């Protein structure tokens, strides 16, 4: 009799976990029940924007027929988990089912954060995370009309590009003085600014959103910024960050991390040996991870542990991240911020076309990390030099395509 794994959430990481477990579980020790809140099986959320750029749902769905037809899989769509009891080891669904588990994995992801500005819930306000969100935006979009995205991070730029693809004139409002403040420094952001404004985005930087304004019928008419500027808009998209979906921590009586998320160890275990958390909802030793690569590493780790294999502790440092925003490559590798010890900063740049910053150790000059934007060398080409002295041709690795 196989044991039952219940996975709550069929997003990118929950799916990867189930898939890896089934692949590694050659002795059929487990069956997997997946409770999915969304009506579609797991899809490529990273590529979500392409849904407005020619791709269909089936193009983006991650679960193939092999997975869906696997007799060990019981995937329940539109069936969120709403209750759970750790003493009886059962999960209750919205349909009223009670499902017993031997192991429970929480993979509930994140929800968009909507700042509580006046008018944030008017008709015409959206978030940007699911197929449903994008269907709603598509239905509301009117070509030639203005739309405002609140938040100039990764998601905000994806959303702004989506509005652009729908024919709207997109504005982006960002409180920080430049786009993508979490990943980029002002120099790298300058490359991005130049490129996206060329593509028609209008940027409002260093200013907060004071209110979302409406017509008498209540629908959105525009946005008033902190400096008093009024930007007309038919559509407002909030992309002002995400928060881990940890509502079930209360019913499960599990601890939360300091900034939310299910508190887990470096092996993704909660305080209960039968309950795990992976992906964006997991607060691994106090820190949540908002990108897919660390989530996949968590999924692999838990799949192996469920099969009794030994695993290395989760390493939250990503050697590199690469993002492509509206055709501009931006990437980071290693450390990108100055520590207390004051790294030496070396920047190689060419106008607004490309920018590469490298941080070097203050004493020995070893490469600690860096930020790349525009037509630079690949971060993969640089990652191998982390911790070593810069090679003599570092500049050529960073800004290739010029005579040595």
């Amino acid at each position, binding site marked *: 009799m196989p044991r039952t794994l219940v996975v709550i959430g069929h997003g990118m990481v929950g799916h990867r976990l189930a898939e890896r477990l089934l692949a590694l579980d050659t002795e059929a020790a487990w069956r997997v029940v997946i409770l999915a809140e969304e009506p579609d099986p797991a899809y490529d959320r990273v590529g979500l924007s392409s849904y407005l750029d020619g791709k269909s749902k089936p193009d983006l769905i991650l679960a193939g027929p092999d997975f869906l037809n696997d007799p060990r899989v019981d995937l329940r769509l539109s069936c969120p988990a709403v209750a759970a009891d750790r003493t009886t080891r059962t999960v209750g669904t919205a349909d009223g089912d009670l499902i017993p588990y031997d192991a429970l994995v929480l993979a509930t992801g994140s929800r968009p954060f909507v700042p509580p500005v006046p008018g944030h819930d008017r008709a015409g306000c959206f978030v940007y995370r699911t197929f449903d969100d994008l269907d709603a935006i598509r239905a509301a979009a009117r070509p030639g009309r203005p739309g405002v995205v609140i938040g100039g991070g990764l998601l905000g730029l994806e959303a702004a590009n989506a509005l652009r693809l729908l024919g709207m004139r997109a504005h982006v409002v960002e409180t920080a003085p430049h786009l993508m403040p979490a990943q980029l420094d002002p120099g790298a952001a300058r490359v991005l600014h130049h490129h996206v404004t060329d593509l028609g985005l209008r940027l409002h930087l260093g200013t907060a959103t004071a209110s979302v304004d409406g017509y008498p019928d209540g629908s959105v008419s525009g946005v008033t910024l902190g400096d008093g500027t009024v930007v007309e808009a038919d559509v407002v998209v909030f992309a002002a960050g995400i928060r881990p979906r940890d509502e079930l921590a209360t019913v499960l009586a599990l601890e939360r991390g300091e900034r939310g998320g299910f508190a887990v160890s470096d092996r993704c275990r909660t305080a209960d040996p039968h309950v795990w958390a992976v992906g964006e909802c997991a607060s691994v030793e106090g820190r949540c991870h908002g990108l*897919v690569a660390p989530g996949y*590493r968590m999924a692999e780790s838990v799949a192996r542990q469920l099969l009794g294999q030994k695993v290395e502790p989760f390493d939250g440092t990503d*050697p590199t*991240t690469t993002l492509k925003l509206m055709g501009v490559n931006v990437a980071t590798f290693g450390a990108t911020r100055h520590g207390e010890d004051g790294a*030496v900063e*070396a920047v190689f740049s060419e106008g607004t076309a490309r920018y590469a910053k490298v941080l070097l150790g203050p004493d020995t000059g070893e490469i600690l990390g860096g930020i790349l934007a525009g037509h630079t060398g690949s971060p993969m080409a640089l990652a*191998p*030099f982390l911790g*070593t002295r810069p090679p003599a041709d570092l*500049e050529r690795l960073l800004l290739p395509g010029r005579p040595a």
Partner: protein
Amino acid sequence: MNDVVIIGNGPAAHRLAERLRHHGHEAGLTLLGEEPEPAYHRTLLPHYAAGSLARPSLHLPPVPGARVHLGTVVTAIDRERQRVYAYRHGIETVHRYDTLVLATGARPDVPDVPGLREPGGGPAPGVTTLRTTADCDRMNGGSVVVLGGEPLGVEAASALAARGNGVTLVCPGAHPLHDRVDDVCGGMLTARLEAAGVTVLGAATAVRRTPGHLELSDGTTLSADTVVLCAGVTPDTRLARAAGLDVGAGIVVDDRLRTSDPSIHALGDCAQFDGQTLIGISGAHEQADTLARILTGRPAVHRRVPRILRVRSRAADLSCIGSPADFDRPGTRQITLTDRTRLRYARVAVRDEHVTAAVLFGVPQAIATIGMLHRSDRRLPGDLLGLLLDLPPRPASDSAGASADPVVCLCNHVTRQRLHRAWQDGARTVPALASGTRATTGCGGCGQAVEELCGQWARGTRDLVEETCPALSS
């Protein structure tokens, strides 16, 4: 005969006289200098003012065969009769010339602030400019306030602080050298000055002086036994103007350093060539060398000199090449280095492997090398970072200690070697490699890298991989 008379006995005049003798000038050679002091190194004055250099050690060696009249003020030029009129101790002297050279230099500006000026326009007692030994002798002990955020102000403040008195540097910009360096470098400069004992007050100007006190635009009042004015200089064109020569900001000269009168030349701080004035000490020396060749019948022309500003003081070692606008010219590449721990800064603009502009602070080796390459119009080394940071020679990327098997797809942890094995097993396209190894199926960020590898393997040109993407080749 070609009797040469030089008006002025500053560094430019002295160098010209010395070079004329060197090149065999045998005719008369007369220098008429207003200062009572024999010719001296003007650039070393701050150290004299600070008491760290004795007066005689400032002096330039006398030029054999030159007749030098000290304390002699030239008051007029008679171009028709080729004479100059001068006064010494109230007695007029007349000097005939075949060739006349104006080397009258520049005069320091005295800002029009109540209490700083005498009715005649000169500095009031307790106030001094910093241009001559006599100026330095006007400084009292006690507290010193230096006005001006330009190089001279920085050098003066830094040198005077060595005397151990309180020295305050008041500059109109947010930090010293505000027109030349950005806030990061300006911050480091300020930190160095403060460490050397200078109190730096930015974004402030003097509004009033009373004996012993100086009131600033921000309302503060400083104790100031001596106020040192370093608020800029103006080329001294008075004689030239009175003689009817072409004068702009300076005395206009052509590429043979000739004024609008072919028998009158000008050089140094008083001259203007191709729109450039006040080209500094090394520019004055270069012009003197050129003019000496011209006057002794040798082929020589004067060219625009590369403008290198150098501030070398106890507190700060700084060099600026070109102007701030040169950094933003299209087609330039920039390298910027910031070391907040050791207070080192460098910003270099490069075009066609030549430096077009630079700001260098606290990197003496790079200041020397880059300045030399710029003056001689030579290419920069490939390892500019190594030069700026004074790093030992290091291997290039293909032989450096890089990991032999780098991870290409981070989301799924697929290494280059694994991709290569899959490729050898028949996965010859990106989709085939993707389904075989999962590479590119995470965030997709490695798509380009996998495509490149795939293409390079397909062409069977491993060497190319080594060359273009060293880190990706094992």
